[in-house]
């Protein structure tokens, strides 16, 4: 049983973003390759590679997802968004071959989240991206679930290092379920323990003293 009192705002599901979710804010900080389709007067300093006062039309630059979503409009195009490498044809083939071997943490770490967000921009490849993201998740889910249910009292850092953020959350949920079940089996479920907040806080204070 999870008795933690602090429950952070959960991230949004699918193409939705949750405004107050810290995870979603960090997800929307991911950078996308873009091309400007109009001049941005007086904002030249944003693009550090040029000295001009304005951002001229046709500049290639990387902007965060939140900005791309805000500026993007179908009718009046001021920017066009390009697909990040991992969602392009070449990588999609790799995911199709065997999704299990790919290190989604270094590629992402928000592979699924960003993939769903990319559907906001009208790209002709949208349906393929959605399919690929979904199939990748299905292909990898079994492994994530299995490892989270069978690693008891083990170092899990090797198991989670290649997982995307979404998969890590699932892994943690599986682990906490497993641990709670093991406690119950040992008859320790009603054992009262110090709050993890308190113990962690004390640990940190100790570390501060030693430093």
């Amino acid at each position: 049983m999870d008795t933690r009192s602090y429950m952070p705002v959960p991230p949004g599901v699918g193409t939705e973003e949750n405004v107050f979710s810290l995870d979603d804010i960090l997800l929307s900080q991911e950078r996308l390759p873009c091309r400007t389709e109009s001049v941005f007067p007086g904002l030249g300093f944003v693009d550090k590679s040029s000295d001009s006062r304005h951002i001229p039309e046709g500049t290639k630059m990387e902007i965060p997802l939140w900005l791309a979503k805000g500026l993007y409009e179908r009718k009046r195009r001021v920017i066009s968004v390009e697909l990040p490498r991992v969602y392009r044809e070449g990588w999609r083939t790799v995911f199709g071959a065997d999704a299990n071997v790919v290190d989604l943490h270094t590629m992402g770490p928000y592979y699924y989240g960003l993939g769903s967000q990319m559907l906001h921009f009208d790209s002709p490849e949208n349906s393929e991206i959605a399919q690929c993201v979904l199939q990748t998740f299905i292909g990898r889910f079994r492994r994530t679930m299995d490892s989270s249910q069978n690693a008891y009292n083990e170092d899990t850092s090797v198991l989670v290092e290649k997982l995307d953020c979404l998969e890590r959350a699932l892994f943690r949920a599986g682990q906490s379920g497993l641990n709670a079940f093991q406690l119950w089996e040992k008859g320790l479920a009603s054992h009262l323990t110090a709050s993890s907040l308190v113990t962690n806080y004390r640990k940190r204070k100790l570390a501060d003293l030693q430093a």
Partner: protein
Amino acid sequence: MFCEKAVELVRELHRMSDGQLPAFNEDGIRQVLEEMKALYEQNQSDVNEAKTEGKSELIPSIKFRHCCLLRNQRCITAYLYDRLLRIRALRWEYGSVLPTTIRFHMCAEEVEWFNQYKKSLASYMRSLGGEEGLDITQDMKPPKSLYIEVRCLKDHGEFEIDDGTVILLKKNSQHFLPRWKCEQLIRQGVLEHVIS
């Protein structure tokens, strides 16, 4: 680039995902607010220019800054809101009196909010279960027995139980106490629940 400071605030909380409360970053908030003020003023003058002189080519830049303003607003509200969630959790973990080190991490408005929350929770608990009220922060795990064996992890001083007996909670001493009396102390790490 704009909004870097605001995201830094969010990262700071995200790093402590177990719910600890880092010190209130007043300086960071101030810097973000300053950036927002500059963005707003720049946008105002650009909007006026676009209106009076019909310079529609300014619109992409105005939109750009507007997005940054919204982003800053989102980050700051998320920062403050997540801190409130953490502060609320503290009431359940530590009880109504917080250790000074933690209170030191809150800003004046957060202390005020914590006090109001305490009051609301207390008056709600008084309204429950007839005359005496019901402490809903007790028995988070269903109890198996009314009395439990506990060991002191640190000196806590004298402690009075229901029948008026006063016992001395001295480090490493063991006692057999009513569960509801010591649940809070266990959560705070003063006592340890011993299972034989």
